[in-house]
């Protein structure tokens, strides 16, 4: 199955792009599976695992939330500037 991934802020910079497609094996996956695929492609993202929040189809999600073919999965790191 294939999902669209959106990265924000520092994650976008580290990956070099904000929008990408991500292929996950099988037809059922979780947000955590998508993240693992991402980290395999962009190892620099790894330290952010516990710090990012995630959304599936623009709705806040947990790492254990299911992801289906065609979903949009967003990863947002916290930012602190003011």
């Amino acid at each position: 199955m294939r999902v669209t991934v959106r990265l924000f802020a520092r994650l976008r910079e580290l990956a070099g792009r904000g929008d990408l497609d991500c292929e996950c094996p099988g037809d059922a996956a979780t947000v955590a599976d998508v993240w693992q695929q991402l980290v395999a492609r962009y190892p620099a993202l790894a330290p952010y695992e516990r710090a990012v929040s995630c959304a599936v189809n623009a709705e806040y999600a947990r790492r254990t939330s299911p992801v289906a073919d065609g979903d949009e999965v967003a990863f947002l790191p916290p930012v602190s500037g003011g």
Partner: protein
Amino acid sequence: MALPDAGALPSLTPDEVRRYSRHLILPEVGVEGQRRLKQARVLCVGAGGLGSPAAMYLAAAGVGTLGLVDFDVVDLSNLQRQLLHGTGDVGRAKLASAIDRLHAINPHVHVEPHHTALTSANALDLMRGYDVILDGTDNFPTRYLVNDACVLLRKPNAFGSIFRFEGQASVFGVEGGPCYRCLYPEPPPPGLVPSCAEAGVLGVLPGIIGTIQATETIKLLLGIGQPLIGRFLVFEALRMRFRELTLRRDPECPVCGDHPTVTALIDYEQFCGVSPAALASGPATASPGAPVPAPDITPKALRDWMAAGTPLVVVDVREPQEWDICHLPGAVLIPLGELPQRIGELNPAVPVVCQCRSGIRSARAAQFLRLQGFQDVRNLTGGILAWADEVDPTVPKY
């Protein structure tokens, strides 16, 4: 939040009627709404990038009492975005220039300056007397502190935060709605998310996010519209795009959940892993037995080493655009994010001095190199800023 009874609201003077006439003819505001604003008390935490536009618009809108918390002094590098302060204010307390600016905009507004850092010891007392808290702080410990205090006090938190070209905004801490910890239960390891000082920020960005915070504050005070509760707004300036994600209160949230474990304010420096004790024992998420940080070297000691011809390599872990502003003689540029891939360029047998702008990123780099087996690694205390202060005043500070 409960709106005050209309009968108890202060009346408007003829002068105020003229000043606020464009509000008064809006059915959603009207005379009663304007009197609500006059009665209202808003606390802006931070008088910087977000606090500037927020406080200026709230003052212009006629919010009766504006509290400001800040302990900083105006720096030349603030003026690119912090419109409360002008060129002539450099070196003054931010609160002093803020009061001048806000009174110039609207003399009817009462400004309450709190010249202090917001801490676990003073936050509840300081925030208790206000109707809405506007979070314009610039660091994670204070953001978690503001969040938790708002939840404990049941005060709405008009939240905004920025990074380079991107901003976030929401309203937290409202009964039944989510809080910041529902979204980000734990802070990022220290150094992972750079500040504006480290990463840079588009000057106009806090103007956009700060005015969104002011808009939400006014809506909350008037009880109009759909507040940004349960919605997290993400703004991308380069694409000029707003996105929204829906957010629910997390029943397992440690602060606002059904069985909260945080029922009083905690030590937020330690929570975020930035207190001296926490740094010495590694980041908050590190396992026990994490390596001790690399030793420090002062700018003067480094200068003496260089003058004596001691073999060493200075690794500058800043970004290329920072390197272009200034760099140390003989240094090599390897931005922190590239260090893991480019570690092969360094010889583990040669002593390494890691250096950045202020010494924070380079401490992470030095610790990383030690983990990778480099024996002699030091961190330049205070970074190139301290080098400019103590060794070479011709190096421009930024």
